[in-house]
Every structure is written in structure tokens, then in C-alpha cells.
């Protein structure tokens, strides 16, 4: 199994003719991802890494079954691109683009909800089902098949922690990047529920950060879960009132603090790793591996 995507997922790359998109198309193909189409308005008929390019998503959908799309267009064009995919019936939309205005994000997320589509991002590294399919930008070599589910708000920290898991022989069922922005498609609970149901997943690593209250809300659900959860929360050393890069990573009015999140997760039965490289040991303990 695995969640959201697997070896049969057909992928479209939005903005495929761009520099970053074509580079990552090549990387995704190398990982084994089935990229069947690309879309760049005005570049229809071209090919990138052997992938046919269409002018619109509808046109691509007339020629291929598209299960998921990954969006690499500039921020001002992202709302249009995301909604074009959802409107065409694509079920999973991965928005890599950073810097999307928050009211555009709110509209994308609301429309996806109405159409029953899953949105990852904006500002996500993407999603990887270990050894099966990678959609997004993470470096290939750190993601291998296994039974640890990973869910995160931030990208590079996820590579760091997943890289450590892989180095310790702990492969992943699926690694899900929800995105670092305030209004993103999924919540921790949405993903935890999918992992709880997934046969392949035996333990879950949750990578959160200061700001907002999504970790605290997730803690309520963790209480009911049968699978072990190991968490890391970034931003312990962050001073209040300073936004640490992500739109949501700010301690405001005493809320969203490191300690508040750690306390909520610990009370719910999750194990919280003090530092990123402490995660593999806690996962091993949770899985009963020596």
C-alpha cells in the first residue's frame, strides 16, 4: 500500500518547460515516477525528457489518465494553475511554488475541498511513496521503501530526518509534505488518519514547528491511534514575535510555543525527539527494533 500515491500514479508536471520543472522532471523520472504529460500554455507539442507537453490540462486529460499534478509555476500564476488541475478532475495536486498570496491559497483549498481533491502545499517539497513514486523536489537517494510514515510541514528538515531514517535502515511507506504556508490543503490529522488505515505503515514520524495550533489539534487524534507516533518540533530556540521563515512559524501572543506543542504531544502518548537526529532511535524503540 502507501498513501495518496503509488507505483501506478500517472503524473502531470505543470510548467514543465521551466528550468526547475525540467530539472525535477528528470529527477522524478529517475526515481521511477510515471510522468505522462506536461503542461505549459503556448508550448503544446514540445517534449521535455521525452514527456509530451500540452497547452492546457484539459487537453492533457483528453490524451492521458492523470492522477496527480505537480505545480512549478510562479506564485502569481499558481492559483490559476492549481484550480485548472482541480477543475479538470485531477485528484492530487502538489503545489511546490513558494510565496503564494494567502487569500489565493484559501481559495485553492476551498475549491479542492468542494471537488474532493487532495492538495499538498503550497510551499511543499512534495510527496514520496518510498521506492514507488516521488512527486516534487526531494533528493532521490534518501527515500527508500519501508514501513515508517512521515508527515511534515517543512521540506529540508524532512530530508534531514528521512535521510537519518534511511541511514538507519528505516524505509518509508510515504513521506508527505503538507507545505510550510498558513493555508495548506491537509492537516496533520488528515494524514495521520490515512497512515492509521494504511497496512504498510507501522510507525509515524510527525515533523512540526512552532506557530499555529495544528500540532496541538493533532495530539487529540493521536490519543486514539493504535500506531506509535514520534514527533520533532522545530523552533525551540526561536524568540517570540519573530517569524522564522515560514508564514506560520511565529510565536504570537504566547500561542504556538514549542513547549505547548511538546506537552500536548507527550500527553497524547507521542514520543518527542529533542533534536532531529534523535528521531531514528525513537522510531526503532517504537517498532521494537534493537
Amino acid at each position, binding site marked *: 500500500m502507501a498513501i495518496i500515491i503509488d507505483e501506478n500514479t500517472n503524473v502531470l508536471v505543470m510548467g514543465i518547460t521551466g528550468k526547475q520543472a525540467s530539472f525535477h522532471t528528470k529527477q522524478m523520472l529517475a526515481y521511477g515516477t510515471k510522468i505522462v504529460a506536461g503542461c505549459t500554455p503556448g508550448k503544446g507539442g514540445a517534449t521535455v525528457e521525452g514527456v509530451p507537453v500540452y497547452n492546457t490540462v484539459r487537453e492533457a486529460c483528453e490524451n492521458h489518465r492523470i492522477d496527480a499534478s505537480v505545480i512549478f509555476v510562479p506564485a502569481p500564476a499558481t492559483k490559476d494553475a492549481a484550480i485548472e488541475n482541480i477543475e479538470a478532475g485531477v485528484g492530487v495536486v502538489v503545489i511546490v511554488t513558494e510565496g503564494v498570496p494567502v487569500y489565493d491559497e484559501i481559495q485553492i483549498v476551498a475549491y479542492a475541498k468542494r471537488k474532493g481533491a487532495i492538495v499538498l502545499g503550497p510551499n511543499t517539497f512534495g510527496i514520496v511513496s518510498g521506492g514507488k513514486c516521488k512527486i516534487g523536489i526531494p*533528493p532521490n537517494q534518501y527515500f527508500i521503501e519501508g514501513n515508517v510514515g512521515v508527515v511534515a510541514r517543512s521540506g*529540508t*528538515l524532512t530530508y534531514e530526518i528521512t535521510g537519518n531514517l534511511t541511514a538507519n535502515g528505516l524505509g518509508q511507506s510515504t513521506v508527505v509534505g503538507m507545505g510550510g504556508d498558513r493555508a495548506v490543503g491537509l492537516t496533520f490529522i488528515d494524514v495521520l488518519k490515512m497512515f492509521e488505515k494504511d497496512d504498510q505503515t507501522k510507525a509515524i514520524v510527525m515533523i512540526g514547528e512552532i506557530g499555529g495550533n495544528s500540532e496541538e489539534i493533532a495530539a487529540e487524534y493521536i490519543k486514539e491511534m493504535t500506531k506509535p507516533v514520534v514527533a520533532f518540533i522545530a*523552533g525551540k530556540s526561536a524568540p517570540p514575535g519573530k517569524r*522564522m*521563515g*515560514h508564514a506560520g512559524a511565529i510565536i504570537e501572543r504566547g500561542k504556538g510555543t514549542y513547549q505547548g506543542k511538546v506537552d500536548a504531544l507527550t500527553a497524547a502518548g507521542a514520543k518527542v525527539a529533542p533534536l532531529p*537526529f534523535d528521531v531514528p532511535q525513537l522510531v526503532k524503540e517504537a517498532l521494537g527494533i534493537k
Partner: protein
Amino acid sequence: MKMFEYMGKELFAKYGLPVPKGRMATTPEEAAKIAEEIGGPCVVKSQVLSGKRGKAGGIKFPNTPEEARKAAEEVLSMTIQGLPVQAVLVEEKLKIDKELYMSITIDGSAKQAVLIASAYGGMDIEEQPEEYIIKKHIDPELGMMPFMARDVVRKMGIPIRSPHGKEIVNIIQTLYKICLEKDAELVEINPLVFSDDKVIAADSKVTIDDDAMFRMKDLPIVDDKSPAERAAKDLGLSFVELDGDIAVMANGAGITMGTLDTLQAFGGTPKNFLDCGGGTGREATAKALDILFSLNPKAVFVNIFGGITRCDDVANAVKDQYEAKGGFPVPLVIRLVGTNQDTGREILASIGVEAFDFMEDAARRVIELTK
């Protein structure tokens, strides 16, 4: 981008919201002139992007133009929470019968905007008991419809058909319109006051979504950044100054926070947060390194786990800085793994820099070098 109070009020006025008579001044003479136009008791308010202006003495109540001149002179020479006062807002002094609270902000967990209102304003809304706070999430497909605004007014305990009630219904809808049209991630009026049968915005806090500035060409730009923050912002990078001695750069907000946490856990002190982002090229990365050296740290720590960021770009940037500076003024420790790692390490080897594989080891090393 946070706007000064006077800018927020100008924006409110453009949308027809009731604000006190008055305007901004940068000299005592202008302040006196505005007070004369108002022709009665005034308020002189310091314009800084910080709360607690009243407690700091940054709000004065002159009765005459001469008193206003003196008040403005005094306030304009103040520094409030480290911010020099460069302008004052001179306004009519309102007769205040009642203070309320009204704001719209983004609720990330609901993925919607949320209206927060209270019939008891004036102080920090977080200090109000929960039962006095009314929250209404705004469905982006419906917007803030009149009936929703009326229901908020009802819950505030204000008669809907009273002059106050009707005005608040209008204010609620207008605030949401401002949010959408100006990409405001926060509009706050605290206090919103009852003055006889009028309802007036006695204060304003407006924050525009930085990510939407590209389409907000008609708004004034407020620049409250330090030179290093400004330089980072111009490169499109996220930077926060801290007070330790190790300058830090990593690629990604989460890993940058994780790097600071790690340094601190091992007994080091970070001098800054610098997220050099994803896919930042050679030139911008070199400039980002230059910002780190400009902070005069005891050491520089670069922690890169390349995904969209390519290790060869980072290594070349390090080399460019090495050559431009004729060697590094303080030790540089780099952890470099991920996309194009081998090429990157060859480049670093050519200038005698060895890259670490693990953040843990690199963090320990950089702390050692600062002891």
C-alpha cells in the same frame, strides 16, 4: 508588511469607514497646524510599529495648538521599544462612551479568514474571557454576507436596528472587502468606539501579506528592517537577527530552525536565522554569505541539505566569497549533502574546505571553534 496606524486609517477612510478627524505630521509645526484645524482637544500619537505606545508615553492629549506643538516635539524625539518615532498622528480627541474590538485575520488551521469581535475592547483581546469573544469564520465562496454580520452584531449584544448596530454591520463587511482587495492578513480596530450615536475606528492595525505585494502597487511601502534584514529581503531570503555569536545559513525554514535548536542544545548561540531558500543560485547564495560575514560573528555555519538547492551552486558561492575576501575572516563550517553533492565537495576541496556529512558533527565543530 505592517502599516503605520495613520496609513491604516487612510485606507479605512478610502473605504468609507469612520475614522477620527486628523492626519499625520513629521514636524511639531505641522502638528500645531493640524491641531488648529481640528480646533479643540487633540490626541498626538507616536507612529511606530509596536504596541504599548501609551505606556511608553508615546500618546499625549494637548488642548491647544501650542500644546500640540510641544507634545509632537517631545514624541518625535522618542524611541519606543528600540524604534525611533519619525511621525505622529494628530487627531481630534473622541468622546468615548464604549470601547469594542473588531478584527479579521487568517486562521491557518481552519484555512479561512476569521472575524473576531468583542463588545469589550481596548485591551489585548487575548486577555478577555472566552465568552466575550465572538468568532466567525468566513467561507471564501460566500464571503461576509450581511446576515452573517448581523448575527455577529446580535451576539455582541448590540441592537441590530440601532445606529450603532447598522454601522457595525457595515464595518464588518467593509473590513472583509479590505482584506480581499488589499491582501490584508490582519485588519484590527482596537478600540472601535461608540461616540454618541457614531461608531469610530480609534486605532488601526493593518498587515499586508508580503507574498501579495506584487499586486499591491498602490500601497505605501513601510520599511522597518535593519540593513542586514533589508539586504536579505532584497535577495528574497528570510532573515532574523538574534544575539549570539555563530552566523547561520541553512536552506529551508524548518531546517534553519532545527539548526538553531541544535546549536543551542550543544551550548552554542546563533547570531541569526537565515533561510537561503530553495533553488537559490550561486550569486544570491554568495551575497547571503556576505551578509553573514557582515554580522561580525565568531564563526559561520552553513547547513545545506540539497533538494531543489544544488550543492555545486552553494560550493561555488562559498568559493566566490573565499576569493572575494582573500580567505575567510572567521572560520566557516559547512555541512553539504544532497543534489550534486560530489561536484560541490570537489569545488570546496579546491579551496581547502572540508564538508561535513552530518549536521550533528558540523554543529559540534563550529561551537568548538567559537570557544
